[in-house]
């Protein structure tokens, strides 16, 4: 067990709620403080399986210091696990996303034995226990009768789970007091209240903080992108489900009408065999056009992503299947007009013709991009409204408000 952050042990510059004042305004911050007041000194523990890397750790890294700053007695604990445990939980993760899974009783035993070991080392006597994702789900066995409020926060898509793995997990999940999902589509039929918390972005992170124009120029210099002509950009892993070839086809249609460039940038190809194959295919498809920039980013390149998004004229997210698709919220936060597929969580972020434009095909994507390039005033309006939508619904501070509301709802 590792205590990552608690009331006494924090390291480095952690954000405080007042750091968000210039972005959100005094009224919003006062509102958050008012919601937190009845929770002062109440104990909360957040538990997940990794301190670094991955979206959950990224969220907790911000959320926990902010809750501490509001006077809540919050801790973040990371469960211990050996290589065998993480091999099993990776297989579970893939199976819960719908992959086939060769069921093995040993795997379930390994899962349960690590959960049992962590029950001994993690103090689970907080008033609110929030368990993130499947890995620590069986910690609920430590709960004394009706003690505390136990909440299972599921960050993954459970719309098509492998039944064997889900039935095993459900035995534990159904004993929680509430579950939280990122989209209604990801939820399950469970005998407990299920809440919807959208994933969120942090406006102060390197990926989203404001950048000076000179910094953007500097970050873009290695990529030889011409900022004087329109730039269409899709930021995503080189994955067939993100349809990068479809993006190139849409760009070629647009190019007949407007002299523009296409940027396809993403990370993760080097440690993913399929990603490397897709990257090769994309490079081949783009090879005859110097205005297509295929950029392989490091797995974690927040400033580059920020600069590329800010330099773009239109952001594309032409996924064939998508989880929530937070790159859309990142683009909207930067007031960029977005053309995206109506899949997964994208229609929650893109309200068609209000906060962006939705498309269902290569031709539709091309048409919507042409429309935005021809009507910059509409592009500006969509970007402004998209920014407002993110500010209201998809920021880390909104996530914090939701947790406060959920904790308060248990006290009433």
């Amino acid at each position, binding site marked *: 067990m590792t205590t990552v952050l608690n009331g006494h042990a924090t390291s480095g510059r952690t954000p405080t709620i007042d750091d968000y004042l210039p972005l959100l305004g005094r009224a919003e911050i*006062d509102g958050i403080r*008012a919601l937190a*007041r009845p929770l002062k000194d109440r104990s909360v523990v957040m538990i997940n399986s990794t301190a670094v890397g991955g979206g959950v750790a990224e969220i907790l890294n911000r959320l926990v210091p902010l809750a501490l700053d509001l006077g809540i007695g919050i801790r973040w604990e990371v469960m211990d696990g050996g290589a065998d445990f993480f091999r099993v939980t990776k297989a579970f993760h893939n199976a819960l996303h719908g992959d086939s899974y060769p069921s093995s009783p040993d795997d379930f035993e390994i899962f349960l034995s690590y959960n049992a070991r962590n029950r001994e080392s993690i103090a689970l006597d907080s008033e609110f226990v929030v368990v993130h994702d499947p890995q620590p789900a069986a910690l609920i066995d430590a709960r004394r009768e009706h003690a505390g409020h136990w909440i299972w926060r599921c960050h993954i898509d459970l719309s098509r789970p492998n039944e064997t793995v889900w039935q095993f997990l459900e035995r534990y999940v159904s004993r929680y007091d509430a579950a939280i999902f990122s989209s209604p*589509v990801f*939820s399950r039929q469970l005998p407990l209240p299920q*809440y919807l918390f959208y994933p969120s972005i942090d406006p102060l992170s390197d990926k989203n903080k404001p950048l000076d124009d000179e910094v953007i120029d500097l970050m873009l210099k290695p990529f030889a992108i011409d900022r004087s002509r329109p730039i269409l950009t899709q930021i995503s892993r080189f994955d067939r489900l993100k349809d990068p070839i479809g993006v190139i086809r849409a760009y070629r249609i647009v190019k007949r009408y407007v002299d523009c460039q296409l940027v396809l940038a993403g990370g993760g190809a080097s440690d993913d065999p399929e990603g490397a194959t897709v990257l090769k295919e994309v490079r081949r498809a783009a090879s005859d056009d110097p205005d297509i920039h295929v950029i392989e980013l490091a797995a974690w390149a927040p400033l580059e992503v920020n600069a590329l998004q800010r330099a773009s004229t239109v952001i594309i997210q032409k996924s064939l299947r998508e989880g929530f698709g937070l790159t859309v919220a990142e683009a909207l936060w930067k007031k960029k007009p977005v053309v995206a597929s109506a899949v997964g969580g994208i229609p929650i972020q893109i309200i068609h013709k*209000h906060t962006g434009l939705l498309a269902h095909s290569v031709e539709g994507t091309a048409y919507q991009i042409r429309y935005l390039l021809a009507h910059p005033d509409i592009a500006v309006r969509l970007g402004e409204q998209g920014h407002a939508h993110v500010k209201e619904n998809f920021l880390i501070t909104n996530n914090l*408000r*939701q947790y406060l509301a959920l904790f308060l*709802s248990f006290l009433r």
Partner: protein
Amino acid sequence: MKTAAKPFDFYTVAALTRVGNQVACTLAELHAGLQNCSDASIFHHTFQTLGSHHFLTEGFSNDFAQWVLTSTNRGDLAEQLGSLDVRDYLSIAELRTDLTRIVGDYCAAHASIVNQSALEPFWFCEGLEVNAPLGRSAATLPEFREGLGQLSHAAFYFHFISSRMRLQLRTNDFSLWLAKELDLPALAERVNRIDIYTNTLDGARAVMLRLIAREVGNA
């Protein structure tokens, strides 16, 4: 200028969305869902959505209308659903009756398309509001104006929009207090008439502040 015997206490609110197990993939299923879903679900998709989409003023009214437009491409039905004004209703039951009637009439008149699959399903969710006092109150009109200017969108939404259902009256927290405690029924009525569908919440508040400033100036 009158001092209220009972001051106005400003609150904020946070909304939780509960996912139900009811889904509509066709207009016929939407019709059935509207009849069977909980009151909290009707509240969420009409009242709460105004709060979370407060920055939109054109063509966004409620989740049902938006889904009909974008997922079933039925602009005429979306228009009818979008024209409902939550301020006309004293209860969720009345609002449900009208929503159900509009969709039901449309289904009856367009029998051939009511079972066509929508692009995306509609998930019936439920809203739950948790409020907390901001620790600020007002006893006079100038104090009220100052407090109003300091409210977040959520707090303004709570007092001006969601209060209508809580009060089961054709009014809102602000108008009720202005009329009852400050004896300003004309101002209360003007405040109540501010259009929440053609104004953003910020816009509605700006109109309200102007009305109050005029009243303070006249006093």
